C-alpha cells in the first residue's frame, strides 16, 4: 500500500468519523429536547398514584365487565403510550397473551406477598374463582435493580432483589422502555463501516495509480511494450483515460525508438559497404603496386560516397528534428523548376533518358524554396535512375487556385514498385528489387518526404497503368 492509499484512507475515514459524530451528536441533542418536551410530562404521571389509578380502573373494569372489559382496557393502555399493566392469572398467563418474563412475574408475586407496593400490585378476583394479579412493572415499584425511590413505610428494605431483566429479551415488554440503548454498538458499527468504506474507496483510487506507476517504471527501464489499458478493466473515468494516453504514448515512443534503431542499423550497414571496399582496395594496392593508381581512385570514390551519405544523413536528421534554417520567402516556382531540370539534364544524358517538361509561366509563390528544391530534385533523380534506357521522364505542374495548392507530378518509365511498397519507398534505405547500390544512397526519397512534410505538403507514389512510377507532390502556397 502506497502513501496515496493511506492519505485517501485516513482522510475519508476521518471525514466519515467527523460526519458520523456530528450527525450523532445532533440527533442525540434533538432526541433529548424531544424527550424533555414529550416524554417528561407522562413520565411525571407514571408515579405511584398514576399506576394506582390505572390499576383501580383496571380492577373496576374487571369487576363490572369481566374478562372482556379488562382485556379491552389493557389493550387500550397497550396502544396508548402508557405504562403497561399486566394481568396474570394463576396459570402465569397474561390476559393479552403478552410474554411476561418469569423473573418479572416472580418479582411481582414476591412483592405482592410482601405487600410492598399495594398501589401497583394487586390481586383481583371475580366471584367465579378466576384471579388476576395486576401489576405495573416499573422501577419505581421495586421491579429493577434500582432501589425503590420511596420506601413507603416498608420496614423490609433489604428484600432479595431479583436479577435485572435480560437485555436481549426484546419480545417481552421491556421493563425499561424509555432508557436509550447502549451507544457502544452503533459507534462500533459506524467505525467498522467507515473503515471498510474508506479502505475500499482509497483502494479504488490508489490501485490504478499504482498500476500506472509500475508501467512508468517499466518504460523507464526500457520495456517499451508495457501497456496498462487492460489493467483498468471496465473503468471509465479520468484514470482510465490517463491509462489510454499512457498506452498511446508508449506505443509512439516504441515506434520512434524502433525507427531510430533501424535507421542506425541501416546507416552502419550503408557505411560498412564503402569501408569494406576501401579496405579491400588498400589491400590490393599493397599486394599489387602496379594497381595503386586505380585503387587510389577507388578509395577516393568510396570516401566521397561515405561523405555524401553522412551529409544526407545530417539533412535527414535536421528535417526530422524539425529544425528549419530556411525561412519562408517569395520565389518563382517556374525558375526553381527550370534550375532543377537544367541540373538534371546531365544525369539524364548519362542514363540515356529524356526529360519532358513544357515549362510554366512565371508564378510567384511564398514558401521555403530550398526544401522544395531538394524534394523535387531528389524525386526527379530517383525517376532518372529507375527509368529504362531511352525512356522519358515527364514533369508536370498544375495549380489549384481555390485550394491554394501546387501540384508537381513526375512520371518515369521504369519497372514501378510493388503495390505493398508504395509507401515504404519513402523510408530511409528502402531498396526496390534492382540492386543499384553504386548509384543511390537510399536517402533521396526519405529526404523528399520529410522536406514536403515540413512544408505542410503531401507526397505520394502510385504505379501508372501504362507502366512506370508516378510521384505526386502537393504543397500549399501563398500568392
Amino acid at each position, binding site marked *: 500500500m502506497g502513501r496515496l492509499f493511506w492519505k485517501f484512507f485516513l482522510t475519508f475515514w476521518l471525514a466519515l468519523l467527523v460526519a458520523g459524530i456530528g450527525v450523532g451528536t445532533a440527533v442525540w441533542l434533538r432526541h433529548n429536547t424531544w424527550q424533555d418536551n414529550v416524554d417528561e410530562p407522562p413520565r411525571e404521571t407514571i408515579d405511584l398514584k398514576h399506576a394506582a389509578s390505572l390499576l383501580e380502573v383496571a380492577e373496576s373494569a374487571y369487576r363490572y365487565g369481566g374478562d372482556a372489559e379488562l382485556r379491552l382496557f389493557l389493550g387500550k393502555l397497550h396502544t396508548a403510550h402508557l405504562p403497561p399493566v399486566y394481568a396474570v392469572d394463576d396459570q402465569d398467563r397474561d390476559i393479552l397473551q403478552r410474554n411476561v418474563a418469569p423473573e418479572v412475574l416472580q418479582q411481582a408475586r414476591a412483592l405482592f406477598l410482601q405487600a410492598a407496593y399495594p398501589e401497583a400490585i394487586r390481586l383481583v378476583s371475580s366471584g367465579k374463582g378466576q384471579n388476576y394479579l395486576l401489576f405495573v412493572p416499573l422501577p419505581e415499584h421495586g421491579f429493577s435493580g434500582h432501589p425503590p425511590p420511596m420506601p413507603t413505610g416498608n420496614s423490609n428494605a433489604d428484600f432479595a432483589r431479583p436479577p435485572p431483566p435480560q437485555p436481549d429479551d426484546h419480545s417481552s415488554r421491556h421493563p425499561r422502555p424509555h432508557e436509550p440503548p447502549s451507544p457502544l454498538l452503533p459507534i462500533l458499527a459506524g467505525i467498522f463501516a467507515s473503515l471498510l468504506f474508506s479502505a475500499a474507496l482509497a483502494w479504488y483510487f490508489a490501485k490504478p495509480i499504482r498500476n500506472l506507476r509500475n508501467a512508468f517504471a517499466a518504460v523507464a527501464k526500457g520495456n517499451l511494450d508495457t501497456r496498462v489499458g487492460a489493467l483498468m478493466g471496465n473503468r471509465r473515468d479520468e484514470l482510465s483515460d490517463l491509462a489510454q494516453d499512457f498506452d498511446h504514448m508508449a506505443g509512439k515512443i516504441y515506434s520512434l525508438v524502433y525507427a531510430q534503431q533501424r535507421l542506425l542499423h541501416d546507416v552502419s550497414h550503408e557505411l*560498412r*559497404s564503402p569501408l*569494406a571496399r576501401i579496405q*579491400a582496395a588498400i589491400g590490393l594496392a599493397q*599486394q*599489387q603496386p602496379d594497381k595503386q593508381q586505380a585503387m587510389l581512385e577507388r578509395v577516393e570514390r568510396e570516401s566521397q560516397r561515405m561523405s555524401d551519405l553522412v551529409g544526407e544523413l545530417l539533412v535527414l536528421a535536421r528535417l526530422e528534428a524539425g529544425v528549419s534554417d530556411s525561412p519562408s520567402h517569395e520565389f518563382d516556382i517556374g525558375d526553381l523548376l527550370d534550375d532543377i531540370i537544367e541540373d538534371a539534364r546531365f544525369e539524364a544524358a548519362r542514363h540515356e533518358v529524356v526529360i519532358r517538361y513544357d515549362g510554366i509561366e512565371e508564378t510567384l509563390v511564398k514558401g521555403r524554396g530550398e526544401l522544395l528544391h531538394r524534394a523535387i530534385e531528389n524525386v526527379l533523380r530517383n525517376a532518372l535512375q529507375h527509368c529504362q534506357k531511352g525512356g522519358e521522364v515527364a514533369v508536370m505542374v498544375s495549380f489549384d487556385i481555390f485550394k491554394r495548392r501546387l501540384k508537381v507530378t513526375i512520371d518515369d518509365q521504369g519497372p514501378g514498385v510493388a503495390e505493398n511498397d508504395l509507401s515504404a519507398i519513402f523510408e530511409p534505405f528502402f531498396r526496390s528489387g534492382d540492386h543499384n547500390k553504386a548509384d543511390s544512397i537510399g536517402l533521396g526519397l526519405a529526404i523528399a518526404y520529410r522536406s514536403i512534410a515540413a512544408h505542410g505538403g503531401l507526397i505520394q507514389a502510385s504505379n501508372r497503368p501504362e507502366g512506370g512510377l508516378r510521384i505526386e507532390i502537393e504543397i500549399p502556397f501563398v500568392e
Partner: protein
Amino acid sequence: MTKVLIIDDDVELAELFKDYLEQDGFAVDVVHQGEAGLRLALSGDYQLVILDIMLPDIKGTEVLIRIRLQSRIPVLMFTARGDDVDRIIGLESGADDYVPKPCTPRELAARIRAILRRTQPINDAGNGPIIAGPLKIWREKRRASWFDQDLELTSTEFNLLETLAKQFGRIVTKNELSEKALGRPLARFDRSIDVHMSSIRQKLGCQQDGRSYIQTVRGHGYQLVKE
C-alpha cells in the same frame, strides 16, 4: 590450384577480393545471387565457399543451411562487424568460421588458408585411428565414428573433437582449441568455440545419467569425459 567461390551481392567488393585472392594463388569465381551460389557451391568444383550473410534473393544463412543438407564443403561466412547474432546464427547453421566485414583482404586470405589447412586430409596412414572411449577418429580419411556409428561433422567440429580426443580425459583450454581447430588465437568474448561445442554435443547425445560426454570446465575449457 584451390578453387574458391565468393557469394556476395556487393559486385565491386567481390571483384576486389577476387583480384587479391587470385594474385595470392587461388582460383576464384564470383556470384551475386543466393540461388546461383547454392547451385555452384554444391557442384563439387570448389574447395571453399565465402558466403555473405546479406543476399538479395535468399538469406545467406538459408543458403548455408541448404548447403549443409548435402555437403560438408568448408564455408567461411561474411558477417557484419559487431553483430553477434549474425555470427552465432552463422556458426550454428554450420559455418566453419566467420570474417567480420569490413576486413582487409589479407585477413580474409589468412582465414581461408587456416580453414583449408585443417580440412585437408593428413597423410599419416598406418598409424591407425585415434581411439577415445566410444569415439574413433581416422584422421587421414577425416572420418569419425561414435559407438561404431558414423558421425556427420563439419570440418571445424571434426578438428575440435580430434583435439579433445588426443587429450582424452584431460581438460583442453579454449585457447588451445581455438588455435588447433580454428587456426587462430582466441579473441576476447569470442563464443565460436562454445557454439561449435554445443553442436558437437547434440550429435554425441547424453550419457545414461543425463550428463553430456563433453564437460564444460568453467573458466578453463572443455573435456571429453573418460568413463
